């Protein structure tokens, strides 16, 4: 599905509101990360990049999206619902007993989810396996793997990074949501990652750095990643955690905190204002 840029921008506000509402209603979940990565997912799903068919979610030649950081589930659910994989109505069941919307992504519960995740640091390995399999069968589909920056702490991540280089997996594009926060604080205090770009480059990857909120720039970089051969590509997307809600932005405490009803109302109010601002700018 391909939407016009202004439609994607409007959708970004709707999805942010859904994330806040879902988590508030569920009384648990992760706010900051999902709010900061909205544009990355929208560019992929609605910017004409990803080959997918919600009516036939298991088509062999579909592109695969591996979400390594399964706590981004509310964002993924909202995006998949808008893409047509399941009714929007289901979103309010997040984290409830018997719901298809599990707290972290579960492959077998909903169409459009390629892997179960939650424990971070192992999605890239699975994406590497899919990319290897595609090469073995001479299939043309692309593998996209979303990762957080916190999981760059994991040894498993770097094992997969080395493997992608060894097998020259140019059908693999990883996206790191570089929001600089993880549960215990800022990434550079918890376990310094920088220079992250140079690390990936020295491991044989092509690195593209972008503003992770600039939709047209994200679409452009996804397109250019398809034309890079021999090397796997990583897009380091610089994002603002909690983007769109002033009291959440840059606050690592909001990694896993749930807004109370007053905070939720305040957040939704800010997003409504932002929506009005975007609409008036676009008109």
């Amino acid at each position: 599905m391909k939407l016009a840029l202004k439609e994607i921008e409007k959708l970004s506000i709707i999805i942010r509101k859904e994330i806040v509402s879902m988590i508030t209603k569920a009384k648990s979940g992760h706010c900051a990360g999902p709010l900061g990565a909205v544009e990355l997912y929208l560019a992929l799903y609605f910017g004409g990049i990803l080959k997918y068919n919600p009516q036939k979610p298991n088509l062999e030649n579909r592109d695969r999206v591996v979400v390594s950081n399964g706590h981004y589930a509310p964002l993924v659910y909202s995006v998949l619902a808008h893409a047509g994989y399941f009714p929007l109505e289901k979103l309010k069941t997040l984290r409830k007993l018997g719901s298809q919307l599990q707290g972290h992504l579960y492959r077998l519960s909903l169409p459009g989810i390629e892997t179960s995740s939650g424990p971070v640091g192992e999605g890239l390995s699975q994406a590497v396996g899919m990319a290897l399999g595609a090469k073995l069968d001479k299939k043309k589909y692309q593998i996209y793997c979303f990762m957080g920056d916190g999981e760059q702490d994991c040894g498993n991540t770097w094992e997969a990074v080395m493997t992608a280089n060894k097998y020259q997996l140019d059908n693999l594009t990883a996206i790191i949501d570089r929001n600089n926060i993880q549960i215990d604080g800022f990434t550079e205090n918890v376990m310094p990652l920088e220079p992250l770009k140079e690390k990936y480059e020295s491991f044989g990857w092509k690195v593209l750095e972008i503003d992770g909120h600039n939709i047209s720039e994200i679409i452009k970089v996804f397109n250019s990643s398809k034309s890079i051969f021999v090397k796997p590509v990583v897009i380091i997307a610089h994002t603002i955690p909690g983007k769109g809600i002033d009291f959440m932005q840059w606050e690592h405490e909001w990694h896993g905190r749930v807004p109370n009803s007053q905070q939720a109302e305040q957040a939704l109010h800010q997003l409504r204002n932002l929506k009005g601002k975007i609409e008036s700018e676009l008109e």
Partner: protein
Amino acid sequence: MLNPNIQLNPKIFTEEIEKISPRDGFGEGLALAGEIDKRVVALCADVTESVRMHLFKNRFPERFFQMGIAEQNMVGVASGLAAVGKIPVVGSYAVFSPGRNWEQIRTAICYNEQKVILIGSHAGLNTGPDGASHQALEDIALMRVLPKMSVISPADSLEARKAIVAAIKYPDSVYIRLPREKTPVFTTEQAPFEIGKSQILWLPENEEKFSGITIFVCGYLVYSVLEVAKELEAEGISITVINNSSIKPLDTELILKWAKKSKKIITLEEHQTAAGMGSAIAEFLSENYPLPIKFMGTRDQFGESGQAGELINKYGLSKKMIKQTIKEVLSSF
């Protein structure tokens, strides 16, 4: 007497019986599986020849992936390959896989329901001179607690070969535990093997002669128990020996049947007695037909360097100890 309904090697109790490591049987079986099913791919973590995956590698180089010393990544990659239609077989030493990568196996393979076959080699004390660091005594426990994972411990090289071929066709993921040492090849091509089935290898000539003791054993130690059974028969003591190579799923029908015929059962494995093969039987029987069980295995302890036989002896799993244990159990009736 040997079970007349199972075709075992006629040379079983002679000096001429061949000794082959079950790893070799697995290696041949994997190459065979690669021939039978083109979806089979193999991954190894820097121990290719040691796990006998080189036979597959040489035959199907494009379907073999060297993953380096990175077992966590290896099982994740295997899960991804399974997701796009392959049947991955991953090999390493049991202390590393599933020892080092348990959570990845749990999440990326089991919870994800991607079928992968895991080979844990060098399991047990028989690993010998390398010492405790390399002697996996906990791997059955680690794997049998996982939903969507089966656990097999073959008794000889032929069973190991049949196990890998059966695992390729099995719906769920399978963990196959292999010893390092050579073992006498006492089964035959014709002997039955099925995931979920145990085999009675030795049984009393008739019910009157039955001492009331049934031994459940798996893996490297099965042959020793058969030798003990033969010696005891000469002394007028008839026992039943069941090769319980299918630890999960258990052959509950056969276990229940023999539990009902027995006064006491003995379980024997080259593994911690906690949460191993014996415990699996105990869990089943305590719910369905409680009876006293004597567990033989390592008891909350690590191994050490030494020759396989020396270690089996020191840790109380030798033929002598098995015989002594049976006699002690008998005298308690």
